[in-house]
């Protein structure tokens, strides 16, 4: 399959890219890793006349970890996120999630901006960004604005982005020390989209959930922030009935399609199972935050990280 005809452009700077995007209007599309867009172009699900390649623009790449905030350039690849030890220390759920996306070849090129930006409900980072309450910085030749991950997605492939805009940065609050976390994804095979997946963060103080966040992947047209499920566990000791209530509340907001991954009912239940497993794992990883104890528990850094480095 060969995509339809288009003109390829490779600007040297963000400003140049935004200017090209402005001139291209609705005919322009940003090309970064291309691992969503090129398959879509092959299938004629996308047919941009002007492709603007931002993958070599240094100012759109990189991770900055400040005292309060983490900022990730949109053209940063999944591989670069996984390899970044400072990011893994500051916000380990990013690496845990990125490792469950696609396969090594795709992670070398696929970017976080593309993953959060294109509105594919199967993508994993949108749910995670809703869990982290991230902001996306949208820039155009005319200016910039910030849109919350929880407000960006309007439907499958339909997002808040306007013609002439591109996501340039993803920003979220630095997770507090001791925060528990987990991204649990059920998939049929490596490289598959989720049958259902859940992102959870959890802060414990005095044996009680002080703050939590839960979001779901690929069980609706958009990622879903599970506000009711969060309410069910906040200020509880996360006892089995609390977890059951959160699972039920999360299942209630899902609207999965029946497809090759299973029936809608099965996928709804699997969303619940992923929430349950993520809550339990996050609770096991959480350390008390109130009194400043933040040493990770032994044996909690194995698992999926184990194979990363020899």
């Amino acid at each position: 399959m060969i995509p339809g005809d288009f003109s390829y452009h490779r600007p040297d700077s963000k400003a140049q890219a935004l200017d090209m995007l402005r001139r291209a209007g609705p005919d322009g599309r940003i090309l970064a890793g291309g691992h969503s867009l090129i398959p879509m172009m092959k299938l004629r699900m996308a047919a941009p006349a002007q492709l603007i390649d931002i993958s070599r623009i240094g100012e759109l790449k990189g991770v900055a970890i400040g005292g309060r905030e983490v900022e990730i350039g949109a053209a940063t690849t999944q591989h670069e996120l996984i390899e970044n030890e400072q990011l893994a220390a500051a916000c380990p759920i990013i690496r845990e999630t990125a490792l469950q996306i696609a396969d090594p070849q795709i992670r070398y090129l696929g970017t976080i901006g593309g993953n959060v930006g294109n509105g594919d409900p199967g993508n994993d980072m949108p749910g995670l960004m809703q869990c982290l309450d991230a902001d996306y910085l949208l820039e155009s030749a005319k200016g910039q604005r910030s849109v919350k991950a929880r407000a960006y997605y309007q439907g499958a492939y339909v997002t808040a982005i306007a013609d002439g805009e591109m996501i340039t940065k993803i920003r979220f609050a630095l997770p507090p020390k001791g925060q528990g976390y987990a991204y649990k994804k059920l998939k049929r095979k490596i490289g598959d989209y989720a049958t259902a997946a859940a992102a959870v963060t959890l802060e414990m103080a005095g044996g009680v959930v002080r703050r939590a966040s839960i979001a779901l992947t690929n069980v609706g047209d958009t990622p879903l922030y599970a506000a009711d499920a969060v309410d069910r566990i906040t200020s509880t000791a996360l006892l089995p009935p609390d977890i059951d209530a959160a699972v039920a509340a999360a299942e209630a907001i899902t609207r999965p399609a029946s497809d090759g991954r299973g029936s809608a009912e099965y996928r709804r239940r699997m969303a619940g199972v992923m929430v349950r497993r993520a809550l339990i794992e996050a609770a096991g990883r959480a350390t008390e935050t109130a009194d400043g104890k933040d040493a990770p528990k032994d044996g909690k850094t194995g698992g999926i990280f184990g194979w990363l480095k020899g």
Partner: protein
Amino acid sequence: MAKRLISLTVNGKAVQREVADRTLLIHFLREDLRLTGAHIGCDTTHCGACTVDMNGKSVKSCTMFAVQAEGAQIRTIEGMAQADGTLHPLQESFRQEHGLQCGFCTPGMIMRGYRLLQENPDPTDEQIRMGLSGNLCRCTGYQNIVKAVRHAAEKMQIKEAAE
């Protein structure tokens, strides 16, 4: 049709060609350069048969335009053996450990195995399996592919230690 001149290095040789913007890298390699080792399997980024090494990364060349490779250093299976025909340790190991049956996936497996061993010269079996998870084989069941990569890792380490 939009076209442009691209310059890149393929298997150590400088190459300059005019390509259409929409030409996929796999078609450029196979049809323009007649390097037919990288295969078109699924054409949908799943199977990894088209994997080549580009700027220190394994890439699926069916999901990249040739114009994106401007200035790149590319290595394909044709660039693995030495000029005198001596096989690369990975090629030798795939032969010795019966890491292939039909051979269709093998160029992709070897190019991915190459980058995996560059990044992690002494991987565990699980690390090999995860490292090769973007490459499908429909014949072998992977046992001997994993063995072949492990065997190559050992050979390459011995060779390195001797040098």
